């Protein structure tokens, strides 16, 4: 749940979501769920000329499985905390794996 937990903190920040079909969408992250489906508001497509059909779209719901990258606002990420969270996640995962 680390990613879920992490993305939750980015709600209402501006992110750029790069999809697996190479479209990059920048918008305000409105919500994210455990499947990392993403809801963006006030979106703009980064390469708008290439995707004119998206120019009138104002908000999107992106299925988590089609996301390639999410570009984060660096200021909104607490790196040491994220490191710690990652450590926890890793130790939990290994504990679970051992447990079967």
């Amino acid at each position: 749940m680390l990613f879920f937990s992490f993305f939750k903190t980015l709600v209402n920040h501006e992110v750029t979501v790069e999809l697996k079909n190479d479209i990059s969408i920048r918008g305000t992250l409105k919500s994210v769920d455990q499947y990392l489906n993403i809801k963006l508001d006030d979106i703009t497509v980064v390469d708008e000329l290439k995707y004119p059909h998206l120019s009138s779209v104002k908000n999107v719901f992106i299925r988590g499985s089609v996301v390639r990258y999410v570009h984060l606002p660096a200021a909104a990420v607490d790196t040491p905390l994220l490191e710690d969270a990652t450590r926890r996640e890793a130790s939990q995962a290994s504990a679970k794996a051992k447990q079967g």
Partner: protein
Amino acid sequence: MSFFGFDTSLPRDKPGQSSQQQSMFQQHDPFGGLRREDAGNGETLDFEDTYDGLGLKLDESGDTFNDDTFGGEEPVTRQEVGKDFDFAGQTARVRDDLLEEQVLHHARQPMQYAQPARPKKTGYEAYKEPEYIPKLEADASIWGKLSSSKKPAEPQARPDSSARKMMSVEEVEAMMRSQTKPTPPVENVDRQSQGLRDMLGVGTPSPAVAPLEQTRPPVQILQRPQQQQQAQQQPPPQQPMPEQNTRAPQILQRQHSPQQRPQSQDFHGQPPYPTQQQQPLQMPMGAPPVQPPQGHRGPMQPVSHNRGPSYNGPPITQAQQMMNMSTDEREAYLAEEAKRAKRNHKIYLLSKNNGLMTPQDKNFITRIQLQQLLTATGGVDNEPGSEEQLAEDFYYQVYAQIRGPPRSGPGQPLNQFAQTYLFQTGSRYGFGRNRGQLRGGDNHVQRMEQQVARAVEAAKARPKNKSLVVEGSLGKIAFSNSKTPRPLLNLKRADSESRVRPPRHTTVADRKAALRDIEHLYSTLMKLEDHERHMPRPPQEDSPPDEIERHIRWRSEMQALNQQLWEATKVMEPIQPAPTQPHPFISILSHPKGKKAIPRLFRHLEEQQRLTMLTLIVIHLDSLDVVRDAYPPADNTPLPGKVKDEVELFSQAVMPPLFSYVNETTLGILVGMLGLVIDRVHVQTILRTKVGVSILTMLISRAELVSQSLPSGAIVGSSGADDDKQQWSNLYSRLFDLIEPTLPHIFPTDTNVSAADDVYVWQFLAAMGVGASPEQQQRLVLGVKERVMETVGVAKSLMAAESMGGARPGGTPGGAPNGVGERKMGEVNLFMRSIGLDVELLG
């Protein structure tokens, strides 16, 4: 301006009312209207103007026994009321209005509506009896509602009658609701008695008087009844009289037989005497009591009729008045009327489904939803703030704590959610609670809270297994829920894998080992911090033994963890005399995340451990990466960015805790420390690096400070301090001798003077200068004279440029930031002052 002087804006459009009437469903103050009782006193509102003429249909001939039937003014009880009159027929006439009003009530205040004042006895219980006029179909709640608050209303009614003139529709309705509760029998008496009055020819609207009294048409209409009263007291108006006298009997005749009960629609078609019908009955009995009751009873019902959502025609009430109006007025009135009809229709459409669910229903749904919410997290089933929750959602929880608004605990989000939810619902009912008149409210909130508690319990009790293995089957079923989607991969790792490493490379300080050490350090650190979070309350003298025991256990665990942490830092690894590999702790420090761990773990170390760590760092000063790698290259190229970052990180992460520790140590330790530096470290090397110089500055400046604060000379008993001082001055001389040859090279040379980051050097020189003897000071100045002059020159030219730049608006955007020259000057001066000089002296 509406015809009636009402505020025609819809409730949602009324900003000022927001506290009172936030939504159709939420707020209504049943007493609100009472304050504006003045309406009844003729100021703004009278039902007569909006009344739709129901009373015309009354059988006026049976008045004789009214008092027998209804007990005069007394509210009627079932026992007193016989069944020998056509009560139902009259009620049936107003049935539509009642239904309308019911819908209206549902629309306006479904919440409050539920139980108000049910226990109160009214004259209406009889109507609830099923066998009693079954076709009546009136909703019992109406009666309950109607009867609810009249009694308390009256005394309160009069005092501030002057408060408001204009009433909005909402206000009028509020008043209606609170006041309308006229016990209909009495009203019937009124109506019937009205017949008498009609025959007497009094109580008709007197158009002649009206305009004199009132200036504005709407108000005028509203005021009618009062004028009538005045008219009653004055000689009766001439105009209407004859007409009335002829017509009243007609009406009476028409309505004479109960079988002739008109349909409610008929009401609207009967213009002649609409305004009169509800005139209070007191007239025949005597004038004085007329006014107040009229005030109470008058306005409410008719207005409600007009407002009734299902109202389907213009209120004939106005017909006669309309005839009296000028064309303009009439037009305005008609427009207003159309507007109102439109609005009524809209309200009707909106409120069609109102009252479909009772408050209890809504509550039930809310509770189910709430339970869903809580149990949705269910599989993970963590009570907010619990260990599991923190584990699952660590980043968010902690982040929210750190960056979010102040919150009470790590489990806040869900908790908060539930609370908000409860609060919102609570406020819904809280209104009733505050008013103390709605007994349901508290209950629901309480029940909801209990429900939440139960839901949490249930969630906790739920088995935590996420998979089910059916016996005899080959696979297992994995449960998933919103919080833990079903894992796609479930690798079973061999146990052995993690155990391969034990005693092996720990002393071999390769990179991987260092990284592993760091991770180990971090996990220990986190364990320790977790443990620290769970500190039980410190036991008091009188705390129960198990609490004390718990605290003791906690402390011993804390100590064990602390020991683990200390071991994890590897500080105590033996120092090899001729190291081929850097010390494990030093290699930990050579990684950024190792550096970042220092301030975190330093907090948990004890005094002795801190000293040990500091000592270890000092001994290995020249093998620290930030010193070793930061030695200025021979070709005077700038340091690589990575090294600079490391240096920066070191000064930000590692130095502060060390510095704060050094600031509390004694001279003896400092002397020992400096001795180690001189003996074990190549001082000339570390002097060329920022970190080395900073650490030296740190030690020397503190030593100077302490030695100066110590009493100099032969105070008995301070021989230890004197020894230290003596040692210190010896050490200082040795250090000075070591440093002197390096002085010309001590400044960073990779950039020009103006951009040089050399504060730390000036600080170091200042620290040295403070303790220097005059002869040493001279040597010191000699060593750095060139740089001093150069820096002062640069600073001066910079300052001159800045003062010129300052004249230009916006300063020098592209050039050096403002204040650089001054800053440089200040830095040099720091050193100069330490040796008793000043840059000013340099000319």
